[in-house]
């Protein structure tokens, strides 16, 4: 399912979040032919993040298997020119205690879900740790600039709703994937991961609330099988939110 859902994203590069580290580990991965662009060790603890490129298919399969087994988290990058997936990444924008669910986040995610659903692009909403990822899956690839313009306008409508309720939109950081201004820079964790800080599974958020792990997998499957958006549907949605066509 993961391979199918994320099938439109490039498979030759990835970021891996793991507690595994040391030159023995690194050289094992590099022996597959992958290249380390850079690594990162968190300030607290031994969490490491590695950005690999030129990842061969077999190594990517290993990363996916480790992700499902919860030994590590796999994050994928978006295509440079076009994509069949796009995602809104809403984060709590506070320096501290930013895994706390704030009222601004609760409202923003529901407003955005409503705007997208009404436009015909129902998202799959997944808890990310500091907020939510709202994924939309298209039946075919669309230019990044068009996806970005659609996302910016949809988000602006959601933030306007926040403003009207007297809430501060600056408390939320919204990023859009793919972002034509930042190619090959940012990646997103796939569904099925466990957040490295709070150890919480990436649960699906429905209008009724957060689902448990097993129900989240079912919702993921249902989305994959029945809610992929046709390209004509996307064009219609783009017109509805006022994005350039």
């Amino acid at each position: 399912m993961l391979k199918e859902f994320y099938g439109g994203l490039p498979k030759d590069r990835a970021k891996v979040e793991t507690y595994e580290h040391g030159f023995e580990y690194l050289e094992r991965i590099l022996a597959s032919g992958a290249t380390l662009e850079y690594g990162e060790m968190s300030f607290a603890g031994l969490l490491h993040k590695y950005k690999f490129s030129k990842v061969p298919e077999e190594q990517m399969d290993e990363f996916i298997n480790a992700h499902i087994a919860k030994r590590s988290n796999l994050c994928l990058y978006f295509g440079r020119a076009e994509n069949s997936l796009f995602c809104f990444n809403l984060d709590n924008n506070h320096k501290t205690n930013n895994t706390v669910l704030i009222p601004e986040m609760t409202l923003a995610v529901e407003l955005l879900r409503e705007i997208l659903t009404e436009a015909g692009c129902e998202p799959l909403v997944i808890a990310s740790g500091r907020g939510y990822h709202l994924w939309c899956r298209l039946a075919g690839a669309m230019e990044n600039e068009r996806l970005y313009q659609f996302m910016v306008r949809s988000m602006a409508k959601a933030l306007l709703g926040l403003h009207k309720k007297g809430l501060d939109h600056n408390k939320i950081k919204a990023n859009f994937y793919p972002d034509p201004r930042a190619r090959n820079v940012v990646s997103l964790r796939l569904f099925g991961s466990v957040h490295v800080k709070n150890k919480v599974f990436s649960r699906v958020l429905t209008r009724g609330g957060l689902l448990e792990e097993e129900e989240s997998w079912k919702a993921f499957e249902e989305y994959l099988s029945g809610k992929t958006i046709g390209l004509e549907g996307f064009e219609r949605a783009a017109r509805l939110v006022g994005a350039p066509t």
Partner: protein
Amino acid sequence: MKTVAVDLDDTLNDFTQTLETAEFPYDSAYNVAPEKFDTYLEKVRRGESDPNELLSTEYSYFVHKIHAECYRQSQARPGAAEFMQWLRENRWRIVIVTHRDLRRANDVTRQWLRENGMPFDHLFLTLNKLKFCEAWNVRCLVDDHLISLGPQNEPDDVEVFYPIMSKHERLPIQRGRGFRNFDELKQWMPNYDC
């Protein structure tokens, strides 16, 4: 294999001097109003952090843009390239360790190292280089940063070498060995079990 971790900013280059003295003409790409530009620039030059409770702000973006410009403009410290080449010729595994946000600074960092003739094997972002060295079993660290030279409770099986700078004279150094030039360091390093 002998392994050394080497810091980049103010160890291999003159980042702080570049930040303090370089000219940054106003550009709308900084995403700040012209009337705020000079105030913000002075704050960045002084190393002021954002008192705002929020992570991503107009000022934090401005800091990122100015620092990115410094990464491009900074000059290699005298002898730094020769030192890195000496490490390579003597079969050291070289890990560049930096505070830079490599998500955004990976390309500019690699380009600068390449253009300045500084070979390396791996590039790592870490806010505590001593902890990194401990985790990766690296015994030699070259770093100017005070975190690496300060607290006693950090791992004590890492040899730290630092380029002597005025900031080191003002504060008590609790560990490490200061060097005046990279030739000095080349003489010392073979004597350490790295």
